[in-house]
């Protein structure tokens, strides 16, 4: 029949519109997870993550020393632990 092609085109457009109305959310969400955005996000975290873990570790060490009068052993012990925790933070930030 003559209206066959028009009919098919309308069908396709209607289908597309319905899909778009349904899938609006996931589509925009996927767009957000661009790799460039992830790299910048990572950049904003890297330097600080390392230092923060270190600071916390040293503060805890200092507190323990104060508590047990063992200056400066806990603080020294905590430095490598803080370092590893910082690396752990980095790995988590990248993963």
């Amino acid at each position, binding site marked *: 029949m003559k209206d066959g092609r028009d009919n098919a085109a*309308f069908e396709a457009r209607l289908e597309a519109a319905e899909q778009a109305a349904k899938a609006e959310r996931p589509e925009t969400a996927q767009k957000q997870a661009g790799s460039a955005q992830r790299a910048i996000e990572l950049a904003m975290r*890297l*330097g600080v993550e390392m230092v923060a873990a270190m600071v916390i570790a040293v503060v805890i060490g200092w507190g323990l020393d104060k508590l047990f009068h063992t200056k400066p052993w806990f603080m020294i012990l905590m430095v490598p632990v803080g370092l590893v925790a910082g690396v752990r933070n980095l790995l988590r930030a990248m993963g």
Partner: protein
Amino acid sequence: MRGLTTAVLLGILPSAALAEGTMPQMDFSNPLTLDQVGWMAVIMVGLYLVLSRWGLPQIGKVIENRADVIAKDLAAARAAKIEADTAVAQLNAALVAARAAAQGEVARAVAEAKAKATADAAALNAQLDARLAAAETQIEAARASALAAIKPVAAEAAGAILLKLTGSLPGEDVLAPNLDAALLARSGG
């Protein structure tokens, strides 16, 4: 990995600019440094209440409303499409039915006409046959009556002729059979 190096560079950059002078941010002898946090708490609680009770639900409602309208419009389009499709199908079916009915009608009319024609022809034939038969019997009757009428005349004529020729009149019983045979030979053919 290139992403990582840029990341490291970007991360280090801000911290490099920090190491100079005494910072008002670290001046905790100024009571305002800590008091600003208290006021921030008050302001943020206010903002949270405004946003969570009024702003965000309202915007959510607007967005939801739009999604509803779009869904409704799409459903309407879908329904209209289905309706149109069924209407077209119905129309096609009606066309087909009408065509079939018309064809049936035509065929019936043709058959009827044909039957009437044959019937008429048969009637005509019968009539003609009857008339033919009637004519034949009429002719037969006419011939018979003609024959019957001719017999006395022939007998009289034959008697007269015989009288003139022989001078005597033959008996009726002799004349009659001969006369019949002669007449029969004439008309029989």
